């Protein structure tokens, strides 16, 4: 089945997310859509899947115009989609999730779970996707959850399968496995739209590549195109995502973590007795597949988690058990994983956001009196210094782009005296320009003698910035290795395989 898009245009207010996009996916081909964050890939796919309505343009299946105004229409014409954020109900079983939407009932209108189980087993065997139909989805690792998503699409007999950033949550090995599954599917006649910003994967698996930049198709190329060319077409200029790192002397340990365990509300250990240290003037990157305890470890470093055991020494002083405020004021800057939820207050102005953890300090306040004047004059300085693109410091932060929101967070965190910077997924979802900015800032802090601990699931970022790399797997640090390690070795560690070669520190 072939899928063709003609002149798809979609605007949100004054912002044009898709600008007259033409695209043709041939039967049994893997068609990669490459573009950086915010280029309009997801919008386009949501239009194809009926989650968004295009302002103009048409969708053709096998040469015939079809009207897709909701996901049922898409499913009916044979389009399936695996979303970047999984569309699974966490508290349901695999079978319940898969039958949802086209349930079969036995007599007395009771749900026929047996039928669903059988269907899942059949698909599992056909495509080598092993899952337990009765497992509760939230207890499954993300890799398996993704398989559930793919089975869900296949069970609807999808002839065109859209995969939206499917490798973001996978280890390199799992990624390879997924790429193999994609090839299998293709050989069985399924057309695949593969959305990604990872050049390596595109070149490995795609038959045809379309590059989208700022909502427009800028090129349609073959997979033989070099990574450098692909990158510059994607961004619109030559890019180098491995910033220059100066060699310099490191100081002693500025942050020491001993036997740190973090538990969730039910008492299960999410981080299991980890030990590591960060030196002054060093970037320690914590790599690993999402969901292996990195988020909790990062949050625990400023006592954001409720159940923490062990020891956190900042410049020799114990801070575990201190309040969040005291942890921050002791000299930790914290860039949280989710800008929108944890980093900024959307309805507050930029100026107000810039003092979120500073408002009690001089000169912003005296006693309980808050000085709007100081707040605003300081905000003007930050906006200039960190190149925050805005009309006015009194604009609500929710009006800013993702990159500028992150700049607000970074500006705030770096505008007080700090010893250690904890950055959790600081470039997630940002465009290349903003990524470069964040990388420069991180290295600047390192060069100024601060300890930096960078949590990232992006291997390229880890390798580019780190002096040493710690790999987390299932709540433990499996090893701390030199930054000259190969991707393969890192990949093995991320999958939980330890060998003699990559011994722990």
């Amino acid at each position, binding site marked *: 089945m072939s899928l063709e898009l003609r002149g798809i245009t979609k605007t949100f207010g004054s912002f044009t997310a898709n600008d007259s996009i033409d695209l043709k996916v041939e039967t049994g081909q893997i068609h990669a859509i490459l573009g950086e964050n915010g280029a309009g890939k997801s919008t386009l796919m949501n239009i194809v899947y009926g989650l968004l309505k295009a302002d103009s343009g048409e969708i053709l299946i096998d040469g015939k115009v079809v009207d897709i105004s909701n996901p049922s229409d898409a499913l009916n014409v044979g389009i399936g989609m695996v979303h970047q954020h999984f569309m699974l109900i966490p508290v349901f079983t695999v079978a319940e999730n898969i039958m949802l939407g086209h349930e079969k009932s036995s007599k007395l209108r009771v749900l026929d779970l047996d039928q669903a189980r059988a269907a899942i087993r059949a698909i599992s065997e056909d495509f080598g996707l092993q899952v337990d139909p009765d497992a509760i989805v939230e207890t499954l690792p993300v890799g398996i959850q993704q398989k559930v998503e793919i089975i869900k699409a296949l069970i609807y007999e999808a002839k065109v399968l859209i995969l939206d950033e499917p490798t973001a949550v996978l280890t390199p090995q799992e990624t390879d496995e997924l790429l193999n599954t994609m090839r299998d599917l293709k050989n069985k006649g399924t057309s695949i739209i593969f959305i990604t910003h990872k050049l390596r994967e595109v070149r490995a698996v795609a038959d045809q590549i379309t590059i989208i930049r700022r909502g427009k198709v800028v090129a349609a190329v073959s997979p033989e195109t070099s990574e450098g060319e692909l990158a510059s077409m994607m961004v619109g200029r030559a890019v180098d995502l491995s910033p220059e790192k100066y060699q310099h002397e490191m100081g002693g340990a500025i942050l020491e973590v001993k036997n740190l365990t973090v538990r969730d509300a039910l008492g299960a250990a999410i981080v299991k007795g980890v030990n590591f240290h960060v030196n002054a003037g060093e970037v320690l990157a914590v790599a690993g597949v999402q969901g292996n305890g990195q988020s909790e470890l990062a949050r625990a470093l400023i006592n954001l988690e409720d159940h923490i055991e062990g020891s956190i020494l900042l410049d020799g002083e114990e801070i575990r058990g201190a309040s*969040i*405020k*005291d942890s921050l*004021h002791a000299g930790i800057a914290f860039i949280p994983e989710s800008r929108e*939820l*944890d980093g900024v207050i959307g309805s507050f102005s930029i100026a107000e956001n810039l003092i979120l*953890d500073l*408002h009690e300090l001089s000169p912003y306040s005296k006693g*309980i009196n*808050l000085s709007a004047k100081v707040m605003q004059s300081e905000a003007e300085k930050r906006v200039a210094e960190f190149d925050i693109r805005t009309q006015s410091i009194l604009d609500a932060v929710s009006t800013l782009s993702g990159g500028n929101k992150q700049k607000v967070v970074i500006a705030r965190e770096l505008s007080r005296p700090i010893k250690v910077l904890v950055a959790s997924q600081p470039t997630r979802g940002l465009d290349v320009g903003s990524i470069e900015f964040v990388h420069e800032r991180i290295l600047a802090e390192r060069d100024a003698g601060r300890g930096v601990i960078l949590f990232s699931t992006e291997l390229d970022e880890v390798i580019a910035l780190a002096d040493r790399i710690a790999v987390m797997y299932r709540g433990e640090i499996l090893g701390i290795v030199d930054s000259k390690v190969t991707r393969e070795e890192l990949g093995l560690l991320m999958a939980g395989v330890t060998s003699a070669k990559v011994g722990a520190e």
Partner: protein
Amino acid sequence: MKNTISRIGQSIKLPGLSFLMAFTITGIIIAVSDEKVMNKIGSPIEFLKSAGASVGNAYLALFQGSIYDNRLAKSNFFEGFYPFFETLVTATPLILTGLSVALAFKSGLFNIGAQGQFIFGAIGASYVGFRFELPVGIHILAAALAGIVLAAIWGGLVGFLKAKTGAHEVILTIMLNYIAAFFILWLLKTKTFLRPGRIDPIAPEVADSAKLPLLAGENFRIHAGIFIALAAALFVWWLLTKTTIGYKFRAVGANSQAARTAGISVPFVITSTMMICGALAGLGGAVHVLGSEHALNTDVAGSFGFDAITVALLGRAQPLGTVFAALLFGALHTGGRMMQSNTGVPLDIVVVTQGLIVLFIAAPMFVRYIFRLKKLNASTSLTSKGWNG
């Protein structure tokens, strides 16, 4: 200049249209529930005339009962304002309870408990008012303070329990309202509170030294409480916009997760907000007892605590807005009494009007839909937090 006018025009569009719709629907209800009108249903013209008269009379009575009644201006023009002063008397506790609910909204809390907090404020003020003998100024102060403290504890209890256990404040405050209502029933049967020689539940009158001064002489009930209420509004405005405490309240109200990540203590904000909310509603109870009731009775709280919620919603949780909303609802209630006695339209219809106004204010999308508007300024629409919030 033109810009300013159009901006003001935009910002009063939603309330204006909401009022229009609410009073129209209320009018229809008044008309169709009037048998004199319905008897004429056979002839459309007569029917409309009669309906117009019925609704017109009711709204005229509403106005005369709340703002100005020329029939009362017997010796001078000023006396005609008697209803307006009555409106102020009713609005005074409403401003304070409304501020209590409004402040809670700012911190992301839905305080349904102003009713119970009001009761405790009234109890504290009444007790100090009748039990002790103190010099004039000090007595008022002490009585009001007693009310404030009791109510702050009652309100703070909600904050404490929520901060400690995560229980939802809506459930907690509803339950505590019932408990407060039963408590005052019991209290007024005890020897300490029952007025000597009485069997109906009423406390002794507060000493003259504890009564708030009257503002317009013996013939009017208007008392100094209105200034206290306005000062409280000013205080809430100052607290929210000029202090670090208010900054924390707003931060937690807007995004508690980000506020916590930045080191703001959410339990502190929840507990202290609810204490201040309690204090405000309690001050309402105190002012009501010391200013107009003078003696504690079981119905002292009336529906001030519940109306407070509609007041705060209409006032968009802004201090100034709350003051205006309280004045409006105070007027509706005061005028409603006149409407009931003069035209036979039950007072309760104003509750419907009140509810409709708030419903439409809370639903800008609906107003836009009805009037086919392209743009409608509703940037500060209020939200509460669901059970998981």
